[in-house]
């Protein structure tokens, strides 16, 4: 057995110390500092700070205040995006995984790479590409639709087109991640279950509904949770593609938080908004985890 002198405990601690310092300085401290900031009238680039207690939080939840409308209008846009994107992120991800899964083994890797490739690029590059693709006058998509006699769809400046554009870009960019996880899950469904079903004369659809789906249910729930969190954090796509428009319709919560901090320079109330948003995300994920857990029992 390891002798546990204080020297030994000290030398063991030294291994954790470098990471612990980074963790404390750039994760733990910011969280606490954020709470402190949210309790003050705190201006960006100014040393003036005045303690206001929970005033910012109260305002967020008081109908009629500016903060209230800023927060809940942003939240509404975010929730809309979650509702539009998450079902597709699950269904399309699973569909692509099934497609790759049933391809001849030799070419599976190739097509997996094709579908996963967009995931490798940066959000800013991704949005720049789709800014061009969705351009109303010169964009590839509208040029293509012109051939079908459909003209001038305002992808980034009109509704419902803007939501559709944001969902399409998100699917293109991130669906590979979900697909990879689904492919992995499909590979782990025991082959003999299918064979037994074949002997019983089950068709492809029956096998999918009665064997595949129940076997991968935990993974579907996992994807649902991670996709919901990711969609809740939506920022880059509306920030760079629609710039929150048309009007404020795609101005999501995270954009409002950053505007409040960096444009109106009110970091105190912006931090309060950020904390309420973070709590919401964590509550949603805990609830979904609980549901997953409850169903497993």
């Amino acid at each position, binding site marked *: 057995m*390891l002798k546990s002198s204080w020297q030994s*405990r000290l030398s*063991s*601690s030294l*291994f*954790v110390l*470098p*990471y*612990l310092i*980074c*963790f404390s300085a*750039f*994760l733990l401290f*910011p*969280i606490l500092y*954020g709470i402190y*900031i949210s309790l003050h009238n705190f201006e960006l680039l100014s040393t003036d700070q005045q303690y206001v207690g929970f005033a910012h939080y109260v305002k967020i939840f008081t109908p009629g205040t500016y903060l209230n409308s800023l927060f809940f209008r942003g939240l509404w846009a975010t929730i809309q995006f979650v509702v539009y994107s998450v079902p597709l992120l699950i269904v399309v991800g699973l569909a*692509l995984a099934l*497609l*790759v899964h049933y*391809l*001849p083994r030799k070419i599976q890797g190739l*097509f997996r790479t*094709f579908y996963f*490739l*967009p*995931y*490798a*690029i*940066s*959000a*800013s*590059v991704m*949005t*720049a*590409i*789709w*800014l*061009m*693709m969705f*351009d109303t*006058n*010169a964009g*590839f998509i509208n*040029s*293509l639709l*012109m051939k079908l006699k459909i003209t001038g769809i305002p992808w980034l400046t009109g509704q419902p087109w803007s939501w559709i554009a944001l969902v399409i870009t998100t699917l*293109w960019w991130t669906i590979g991640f979900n697909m*990879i996880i689904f492919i*992995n*899950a499909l590979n782990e469904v025991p082959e003999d279950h299918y064979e037994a079903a074949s002997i019983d004369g089950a068709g492809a659809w029956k096998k999918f509904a009665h064997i595949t789906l129940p076997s991968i249910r935990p993974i579907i729930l996992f994807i649902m949770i991670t996709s919901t969190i990711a969609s*809740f*954090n939506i920022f880059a796509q509306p920030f*760079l593609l629609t*710039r929150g428009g048309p009007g404020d319709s795609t101005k999501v919560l995270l954009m409002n*938080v*950053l505007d409040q901090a960096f444009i109106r320079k009110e970091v105190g109330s912006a931090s309060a908004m*950020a904390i309420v*948003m973070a709590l919401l*995300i964590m509550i949603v994920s805990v609830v979904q985890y609980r549901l997953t857990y409850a169903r497993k029992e």
Partner: protein
Amino acid sequence: MRKMKTFWLVLLAVVVAAIFLLPLVWMLSTSFKNDFEALAGQMNFIPSKPTAENYIKGLTGELMNVPITRWIANSVSVGMIGTGIVMLIDSMAAYALARLTDLPFRKTLLSLFIASLMIPGVLTFLPMYMEFNALGLINTYAALILPYSAGAFGVFLLYQFFASFPKEIEEAARMDGANKWQIYARILLPSAVSIMVTLGIFTFMGIYNDFVWPLYATTSPEMRTITAGIAMMAQGSYTQAYGKLMAMTTIATLPVMLIFIFGQRSFVRAITQSGVK
């Protein structure tokens, strides 16, 4: 019958692949078009008058006052230094958490690190900015690197690996008089090369591709990373200068695309091993 089914499946796969690759091919094609042709609304993949002008202007700094090579250099060096730090401190911490049973507060620290994986970025973004601002570190390389060192993903990934490492080898080394540092550096690290590569690829791509933090944490053109720089271009006066914009995005995409294609197996492993079971 079976052959026929396979044919239709492959055909479908090819069509879907074309849809996925089309924006990337179009990006490459547009980057060789002049401003007029890039805005003409045509669908020609081969430019009628191919030009390298967009690339030359970007590389000589004519577009954004700073040569784009500077942005690439910033991104690559920030990514490499950040990745190096993460690999070193995460592996040390994971080793201690997994193998050194006399580490004080071992269980508490482990739960704390794992719980931190649930923290959404929005919670730390603003205070992190205020922290670096108070320290006078906005617009420095420190600001571009240090925030990435706090993530617990690597600790978690390596902890799982080190925890399943056979005890006997470690015991034998201790019998031979090896100390903790020697066991870490000479036995555990060499056995963890492939998982370390996985972590390295994952971390580098994460830092290289992030654009929101560098966009706010830098103020002068020469400190921008390539992704933040492109976001500035796309938001500013180059919104519709697609030829120039696409030349820059093509340059920005090449390094990560290469790493991604060659390291894909590793990347997939990081995704599938980190908690999905």
